[in-house]
């Protein structure tokens, strides 16, 4: 027998948990404005995220999926994308959405049970959040196909979690992307947990990056808590795809510091020590340390940033809380371009009975 195919998976980290740079840290790391920009975005995301959880706890928001701990992965991805690229997220990538230009109040409306939250004012082509796991991977592949057919240099970016790599749609998307050389990047944000199932029980593979081998596309693993690494490799992958060299898979390894959603209780299935250990390597600490070491950050700037972020979030929260319910007929008015005749009677019925349900819950 002879070996006719082999694979290897490479791992990359530029900034270690203590904020010490590696020798081969990319040029980006020498640009103070860029670095501070990334750090601002990550901090704002965390402040927003904390507020969202609090809103849920005080009954002002529905169930919410926190992105605590994922800030480097989320922001790094968005920072590498071109404005006219298209994002296909799952439902946790708050930082990515905000960086792309989705407004904070839009995210609140979404989790607050209002479809207008997905009608992004400033972001025209990105997909909205996607709840059925990994179905968005195929959408990203489709968007990439459109770009390819029209000869555009745009790319699609698919985001899903470790759990999503078990879904058939994930493999189907990668496979067609490989077979057709599509300009799509599959980014797996491995936060080690799919609700209560740890990554070790999700799959037998040592890495998720190697799932790419089955689809014949390159795959790498990156420290997802290192925003510089994430930004660098996503940019490289996009550049490659734009040149017509096809799809690839990037696994960003991080940790879900929060519960799965605000209605989950992760202490039922996780050990306190594991979570504490994960906190020690979380993404904000290291970039903050690095910036401080570079002499471009200090306590005063930190304080100002936090205040600024809090203000921004407050304004968005007020906008959200002051948005009245959508009119009842809106559940009909976006079903088709033209409302079919048979639905007119139902629409009138709904209007007649609007808000007359007495809040029954049995």
């Amino acid at each position, binding site marked *: 027998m002879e070996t006719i195919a082999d694979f290897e998976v490479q791992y990359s980290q530029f900034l270690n948990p203590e904020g010490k740079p590696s020798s081969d840290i990319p040029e980006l790391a020498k640009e103070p404005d860029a670095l501070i920009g990334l750090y601002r975005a990550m901090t704002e995301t965390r402040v927003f995220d904390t507020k969202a959880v609090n809103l849920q706890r005080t009954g002002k928001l529905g169930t919410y999926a926190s992105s605590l701990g994922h800030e480097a992965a989320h922001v790094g991805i968005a920072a590498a994308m071109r404005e006219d690229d298209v994002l296909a997220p799952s439902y946790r990538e708050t930082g990515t959405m905000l960086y792309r230009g989705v407004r904070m109040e839009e995210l609140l409306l979404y989790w607050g049970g209002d479809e207008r939250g997905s009608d992004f004012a400033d972001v025209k082509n990105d997909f909205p959040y996607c709840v059925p796991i990994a179905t968005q991977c195929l959408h990203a592949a489709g968007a990439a196909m459109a770009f390819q057919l029209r000869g555009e240099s745009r790319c699609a970016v698919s985001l899903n979690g470790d759990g999503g790599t078990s879904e058939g749609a994930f493999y189907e998307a990668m496979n067609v992307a490989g077979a057709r050389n599509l300009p799509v990047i599959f980014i797996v944000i491995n936060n080690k947990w799919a609700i209560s199932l740890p990554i070790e029980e999700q799959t037998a593979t040592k890495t998720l990056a190697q799932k790419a081998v089955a689809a014949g596309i390159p795959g790498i693993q990156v420290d997802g808590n290192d925003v510089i690494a994430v930004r660098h490799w996503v940019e490289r992958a996009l550049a490659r795809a734009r040149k017509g060299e096809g799809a690839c898979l990037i696994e960003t390894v991080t940790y879900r510091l929060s519960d799965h959603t605000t*209605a989950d209780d992760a202490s039922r299935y996780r050990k306190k020590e594991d979570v504490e250990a994960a906190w020690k390597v979380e993404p904000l600490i290291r970039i903050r340390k690095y910036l401080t070491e570079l002499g471009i950050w200090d306590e005063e700037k930190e304080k100002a940033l936090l205040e600024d972020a809090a203000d921004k979030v407050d304004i968005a929260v007020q906008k959200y809380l002051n948005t009245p319910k959508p009119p009842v007929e809106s559940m009909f008015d976006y079903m088709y371009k033209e409302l079919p005749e048979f639905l007119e009677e139902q629409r009138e019925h709904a209007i007649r009975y609007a808000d*007359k349900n007495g809040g029954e819950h*049995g």
Partner: protein
Amino acid sequence: MTTFNLPDLGEGLPDAEIVAWHVAEGDLVRIDDLLVSVETAKAVVEVPSPYTGVVEKLHASAGDIVATGAPLVDFSDVTASDAVPEPPAADAGEDAATVVGNVPTGGELLQETAIAGGSRRHKKGRIKATPSVRTKAKRLGLDLAEITATGKNGQITIADLDSHAAKGKVLARSARPKTIAGRSDQLRGPRRAMAQSMSKFRDEVALCTLFDDADINEWIVKRNITARILRAIVAGCVAEPGLNGFYHSDAMTHQTESRVDIAMAVDTEEGLIVPVIRNVEAMSIDDIRAAVKHLKQATRNRTIAPQDMVNYTFTLSNFGMMAGRYATPLMVPPTVGILGTGKLQHDVVAVMGGIEVHRRIPLSLSFDHRCVTGGEAARFLAAVIQDLEMPD
């Protein structure tokens, strides 16, 4: 606490009967939520809630008669505007576990009985008939229990209804005298209104009636009788406008109208109602026909609004459906004219050179002699007859 009194429902009526409540004591209602259905003399009216608040007390039950202006509903915690309902707070403490959303938790003990299907087999021998047969039977005043069913599935068919009706005519004479059930009903709804308005009439109006016939032998199209009659009434009003209007007895004023709004007296199960066709003078014969058809349907569905049963200038009473050629119909003050049409029949008439059989409509024109003369009435009737006798 705020009390909502029964408003004047648009006809100056003294009271209304509660048909059905749409809310219960303790319910939270919002402005414009349906509160209660009431029946006035002519129609069933839906009353919306004027407040957003909690229903504290209902002052009447279904079937009760409430006077206009009397208390109807007490509200508490009244607010003028809707608050945006807040999403329910997450359950703290209790592990009402769910990864999403908010599963309501209650400690109430469910008391229920559940009979598994297939364990009851009571064949009650019900009368079988399609809804259309049932409706027709109702309209004909037939009791389904007395009709023999010949349908393949044991159901009563339309044919069964027809043969029963035919049989009825034969049986009628040989039938044993029926016993009459005595009863005592306080008048409600339209019947109540009738007693009130007839008494008023007797006290005020100087009734006089002219009788004549219209020979419709020459009609090209031998249908749409009601529409032709309505057009003929307009002809009468043109000839003698004095019968198209009102007499206000206290001011002794005779008010003639240029609009001809004709009320069609219709006998329903619940009594007499008078839906109005407006501006008949501006309608073509096709318009009139369409209006009559629409009105019949609305009457059947009881969807005639209160404002469509008031403020008419003349009345038509088609009383002759079953029997009766001539009558002394009574108009409702302050109107001064009413035309009654009796049973259409084929009459033997004298013509030049012999006798023929012609279809004729008997006409009875009643007028209020306080303000209309016999001559005016006669000229009115002549114009009616002339128009009615035209071929089309």
